[in-house]
């Protein structure tokens, strides 16, 4: 007679160990399906839907984070007597790291949850099996358009996040902290170059893709059933999406900016 707690522990550990393998396998098949040409109309509609659902959240979240960072930075810089220095810091740190990261997080919270619960609901109501019965490929019909939509929507959300964050910082700097309008804007943009926008676009593509893959995996391939599984799938998609977004953002920054640092 084994202790049920030990049995539970071993299952937890083995599923945790197997998870990366299953996720990797799903990633490979999903990418293959995405390349093989998903239905164009669905892809377009899903992209529009992603933007309509996620962009407002992205804009609000980054607007406030820009505002918050400006207040904090101005307070930290107050001892040097240069409040407009805060613009430099927010422009640099915000555009390079914080705004793309929060854009990814907002996408995971909104679109990731939605995609996962959609797909899991299709699983629960056996619509996926129905497609398979008819000889259609659910990966190509359901997963691929969602992946493409996320990959297109990601960079758009990141760029929107950068603009919104800078606007938040500018408005707080000018109207709350009383920094000169031109000086604040110049400080915000002073450290930025085209390269930062390019990196933002690259990051957006990868973060969007990751949010999409994680959400589709949690909704489509995760081992879970019953009506309550829809909520659980959404929950996992959000939190795992957020974790993956953070790690991916760090990796991309290291690859791109770390390289620049060495070359300088």
């Amino acid at each position, binding site marked *: 007679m084994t202790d049920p707690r030990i049995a539970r522990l071993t299952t937890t550990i083995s599923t945790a160990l197997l998870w990366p393998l299953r996720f990797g396998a799903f990633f490979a098949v999903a990418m293959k399906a995405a390349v093989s040409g998903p239905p164009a109309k669905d892809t377009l509609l899903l992209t529009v839907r992603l933007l309509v659902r996620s962009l407002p*959240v992205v804009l*609000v*979240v980054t607007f*406030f*984070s820009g*505002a*918050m*960072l400006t*207040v*904090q930075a*101005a*307070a*930290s*810089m*107050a*001892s040097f007597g240069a*409040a407009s220095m*805060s613009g430099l810091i927010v422009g*640099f*740190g915000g555009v*390079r*790291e914080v705004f793309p*990261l*929060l854009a990814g*997080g*907002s996408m*995971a*919270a*909104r679109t990731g*949850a*939605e995609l996962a*619960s959609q797909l899991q*609901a299709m699983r629960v109501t056996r619509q996926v099996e129905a497609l398979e019965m008819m000889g259609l490929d659910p990966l190509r019909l359901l997963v691929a358009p969602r992946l493409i939509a996320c990959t297109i929507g990601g960079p758009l959300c990141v760029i929107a996040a950068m603009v919104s964050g800078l606007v938040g910082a500018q408005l*707080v700097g000018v109207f*709350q*902290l*009383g920094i000169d309008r031109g000086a604040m804007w110049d400080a915000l943009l002073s*450290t930025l170059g085209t390269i930062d926008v390019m990196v933002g676009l690259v990051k957006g593509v990868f973060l969007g893709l990751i949010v999409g893959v994680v959400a589709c995996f949690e909704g489509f391939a995760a081992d879970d059933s019953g*009506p*309550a599984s*829809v*909520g*659980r799938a*959404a*929950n996992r998609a*959000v*939190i795992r999406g*957020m*974790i993956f977004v*953070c*790690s991916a*953002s*760090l990796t991309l*920054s*290291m690859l791109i*900016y*770390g390289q*620049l*640092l060495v070359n*300088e």
Partner: protein
Amino acid sequence: MIGILRSFGRGAVDVVRAFGRVVAFFVVATMQGLREPGGLAAAVQQAIILTSRCALPVALVVGPIGAMLALQSLTLIRTFGTEKQLAPLAAAVIIKELAPGFCSVVVAMQGGASIAAEIAAMRLAEELDALEVMGLEPRGLIAGPRILGAALAGPLLDTLAIVMGLTGAYLMAVLVMDVPHTMFIEGLADGFSVKDLLLSELKTSIFGLGLGAICASAGFNCERTTVGVGAAANTAVVASVVFVLAANYLLNTALFGLRGGGVQL
């Protein structure tokens, strides 16, 4: 044109109304939760559940962010040749802003969603109605401990986030970017004071109260369908993430004064 304006106006009114409902819910739930016999013990129990559920995600999210901060600060700092400033800067930014902010976002995503889904499932299974029939107050019994639990779990998770963030920054700076080990360790303490630490913990506690109230009230007011449970969890997550960032801005403004630097820390 009028139609667009009208829908905007309606949206704004809806937001205000939802906010009012959450505030009313928060007051009732926490007051009654504290008045229930054993209310505090239940809150501690919820805090433990929430902490164990969120610890790993918080660590996995804030660790890379600390590393990222070290990397980007170095790109900025190395041009001035003042590597010595890295550790104090990293400590200050992580403790004051990144750890409490991102820790609360993760708690909203993981813990908040589970609070909302749990309570919504109770609503769906008519368990909350059963409590009411028995003459018990479900808001005090179910929502109160969860809201207070989130406020208690906040500082614990914030401490973990600070440790993980600093570890991430250390690993990036010392192992990858070759900043001297002793320079980093000795510089850490220059970046913050005990007051900063306490403020950081207090912030997460306040965010915990807020997101607990938002998520619990979303669960209480959900539609009584399976889809409604999922929708309640999702709305709760999005609303509490927005709340955390907006509240963070307002708290910073309150702390540092409208003009910035009002309070010297």
